[in-house]
Each structure stands twice: as structure tokens, then as C-alpha cells.
């Protein structure tokens, strides 16, 4: 079980990247994981053409998995187009954590993805299909 809390995850939890609120910003969304009470918001600044991400930040409180997931995901977003953001595969978000995620913690790992999609569409996004994500994560052999 300690391997779920590898130093990599704990580092992101203790000193998250891209943490805070961007002012001004172009996109903003706040969402929560009702099963654990985690709340997360994301702000994104776009380029002059409002096409590509220039900067991004997330804020909120939550568990090590959700905070590390947001820290890792936001690191990947600069330079991406809005279409790129929409096309992000939730399986990759889980896989990028590099630790095995079971069904009980899947939503912790996916909250950042859901908040990001909410920011892109300007409304609450759906949770990805959990069975599909889990199947993909297992196939991908993300376990260390």
C-alpha cells in the first residue's frame, strides 16, 4: 500500500505545481467530489487568439491523490489548444500518477480531469465511465 504513496505522489501533494488562482483568467470552473468532500477549482489563461493555454492553476483542498493528479495534469496543459484539452484521455490522467488506482480512489484521481473539462465547456462535466478507465489503466500496466 505504501507504493500508492510513493515519494513522487507525496512530493506533488506537499508542494503542488501550478497551485493557486490566476487573475485575470479566461476560463474558470469549480467542482467537487461528493464522496470525499474534496473541492477543486481551476483557472486558465489563454493566448490572444483565445485558442491555446498560456497558463493554468488549480486551487482547493483534497487528498494526496487528487492534489497530485491536479499537479501533474496542469503541468501538461501549457501550449495545448482547447480541442487538445477536450481530447485528453482520462485513462492517461490516471496512468500519469504512476501508481495503482483502485475503484475506491478513482474519482480522487479523476477530479482534476473533471474540473478541467468543466472549465473548457463552461458547465459541470460528467465523470468518465469508471469501468472503462479502470480497464484501460490495468491494460496499460500502470502499476509500478
Amino acid at each position, binding site marked *: *500500500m*505504501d507504493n*500508492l504513496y510513493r515519494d513522487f505522489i*507525496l512530493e506533488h501533494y506537499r508542494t503542488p505545481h501550478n497551485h493557486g488562482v490566476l487573475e485575470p483568467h479566461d476560463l474558470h470552473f469549480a467542482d467537487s467530489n461528493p464522496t*470525499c*468532500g474534496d473541492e477543486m477549482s481551476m483557472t486558465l489563461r489563454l493566448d490572444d487568439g483565445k485558442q491555446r493555454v498560456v497558463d493554468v492553476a488549480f486551487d482547493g483542498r483534497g*487528498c*494526496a491523490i487528487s492534489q497530485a493528479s491536479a499537479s501533474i495534469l496542469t503541468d501538461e496543459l501549457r501550449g495545448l489548444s482547447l480541442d487538445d484539452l477536450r481530447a485528453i484521455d482520462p485513462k492517461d490522467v490516471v496512468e500519469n500518477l504512476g501508481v495503482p488506482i483502485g475503484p*475506491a480512489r478513482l474519482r*480522487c484521481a479523476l477530479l482534476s480531469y473533471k474540473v478541467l473539462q468543466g472549465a473548457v465547456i463552461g458547465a459541470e462535466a460528467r465523470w468518465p465511465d469508471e469501468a472503462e478507465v479502470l480497464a484501460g489503466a490495468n491494460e496499460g500496466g500502470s502499476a509500478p
Partner: protein
Amino acid sequence: MAIEQAAPDVTPFDGAALRADFPVFDRPHRSGRALCYLDSAASSPKPQAVIDALADAYGHHYANVHRGIYELSEDATARFEAARTALARFIGAPSEREVIFVRNATEAINLVAYSWGRSNLGPGDLILSTEMEHHANLVPWQQVAAATGATLEYVRLTDDGRLDPDDLRARLARRPKLLAFSQVSNALGTINPVAEITRLAHGAGAIVVLDAAQSVPHMPVDVAALGVDFAALSGHKMLGPSGIGALWGRRELLDAMPPFMTGGSMITRVTLAGTEWNEVPWKFEAGTPAIAEAMGLAAAIEYLERIGMSNVRAHERLLFERAWAALGDVPGLRRLGPDSPDDHAGVISFVLDGVHPHDVATIFDGDGVAVRAGHHCAQPVMQRYDLPATTRASFYVYNDLDDIERLVGAIDTTRRIFGAR
């Protein structure tokens, strides 16, 4: 406030020895360690006696109840009704006719909310619930308030997790028609002084709905002595099967209430023009009930009665005292709820500085320790104390002092992984 059930003579028992009665403790855990189950406030494992009773019910005593003119159905009916009688005795109900089988405490409270609530409440009426309640004793009242135009207010909590007596009195002075509260808080462990609160509520003209889901499994409960008007409980939290629970209510109130659900069994005569309702409790038991589960519940009651509910309470009180003290020694750990073991059941909610409760529970699981993390279906409690969630350890008959050591050990593991100061 007064202690309601003074402890009579108590016979200590060995929780570890009782674990032999529960097959789940033989189940291998991926940690390689024996299961340390500290989530009984959510649901309890089942002793072999209950599992056997379920199998025996389906194997040898199963037919539909109340209607069959043949031996097997008469047998099933007698055993189903005997379970009702056993439950009535177990909770001190004056009559088994006042015990209605439902799926769980949630359905029991919904029954009162829909049936009593919608025929007795209207605009201008006040409903009182509390900030302490499980969503099951909160959302149904929100729904009834919305449907009837009644106003819903909540009794406030003190910083140490009790119902604020001054706030309670002030709100009762406005003469609510109903007060709904729990005997034991599932999120805080608080034991409320039910008899005293009920006296005050009755003095103000309110009927009292008691959520007894967390008390009936863990301490002697006598609904007549407590003086409440309705009490709700779940079988699955008291070693019984899931899918069966009960509502107890005063006969005169139940008689005056319209049915909750309608259909078969709950009628005496149906014509195309209309229907006459059956008597209580059957008026409230539409359709085929949970027959085998009722027989399983009777076996659970028998198991608990053999231990003795005063002994169960004393056992959990001891576990609470040891765990409360041990957790109090952990740096950065905050315990919720009252300090006094008189007012705190075997449920401890806590938060660990810098570690989210979900991470705590995951790390505990790695040590084979099952606890709950989250809002415990009591989000207003979390809001009251400005917490996203807590970790909750809850005790029952099969726990012992070794489990407290496992709990403390798992906290040490958590602090080590997170490098707690």
C-alpha cells in the same frame, strides 16, 4: 444532562473470542494480516448463526406469508411474525402490532415523513431536525417541508458535538409539530439524552421521531421508557441481514396515518371503487416483505440477547475509553464529539493534520484496518466543523483491545508515510 441507562451488573466478554462466530474474519486480507474491522457504524459483519438462519429460512421455512392455506405458508408466517415479536421485545415496544418491517431506518423515517408528515403538516408549521443528523433524518424532512409549506429548522451543535440545550429550548418554544433527532450520531458518536429531550419536546407539543439506527445495535433501548413516538432502525447494523429494518410507532398515531405505499397485503377489501386498509402493522407493509431476512434478524437479536445489551454497551465503552485516550496522545490528531464516555458511543471521528481522511483510510487498509473516511452521510456536520471529511473508527462486539492497538499502529504508519511532524 442525565445518563439515561444506568449500567446494571455487567459481565465482560472477550471480543476476540466472538470473532470465531463471524466467518468474515477468516477471509484472507491482501495485507497478510487478520481483518481489523472498525466500520460497524456503517454495517456489521454477520455471525454464522444469522447466516445459518437465512439458509434455514430459504431451505425449510420459506413460502409467501399471510395468505397461504397450507402448512409451509403457515410455518413461514409464524416465523415471520415471531421475528416481529422478538424485535418488539428487544426495543421495549408495548405491542408487536406497533412494529412495522421496512427495508432500513431510511425507509422507516421516510414512512413517517410521507405518511404522518404530509397529512399533519402545512404552511406555518415548524419541523425541527438537528445539525447532527444523518441525511436519512434530514433529507426526508426537507422534502416534506417543500411539499407541505412547513418550515424546517435545525438544532445547533456545540463545539464538542452535542445538541446545544439552549438552542433546543429556544426552538421548542416556537412550538414545532415534530422533532426528529438521533439517539447516537453516526458522524460524531454523541449519545443524546433522549428521554430528557423528548420530555421537553412533548411539553412543547411536538411528536418525536427517533433515529435509533446507531443505538439499538449497541446499547439497551426501551422505546416506551424513552417516551418517543416513533423509532427507526436497520437490521444490517445489528448483525442482521441487509434489506430489513423497522419502524416502531405509537399505535394511536399509526392507526390515524394513511398508508405509505399501497398494493397487496395492506388491504382488507378492494373494489374498483375503492379500498379499505388493513390494520397496523400490515397497513404499512405493502407487497411481499423480506421474509427470510426477518428470520435472520430474529437470529441476530437472539445472538445479541445472549451477550446482553448492557454488556455490549459496557464493552464498547471500554474500547471507546482506551481508543479516545490513545488517539488523544497522537500529535496533530483532532478527535470530534464529547469527551465523556457517558455521552459518547463506540464511534470516534477524527482528523489528522495534513493528511486527508481518504489517504488515512487507504493507508489503514494497507495495514488490514477497515475504517470509513468521508462525510458519513452527514454533510452538515462536516460543514459545522469546517472539515471536508473525517476518518471514523467504530466498534462492536467482535472488537477488542488488540484492535485499538491496530488502530494506533495504522495511525503511526500514516504519520510515517506522510512525514508528519
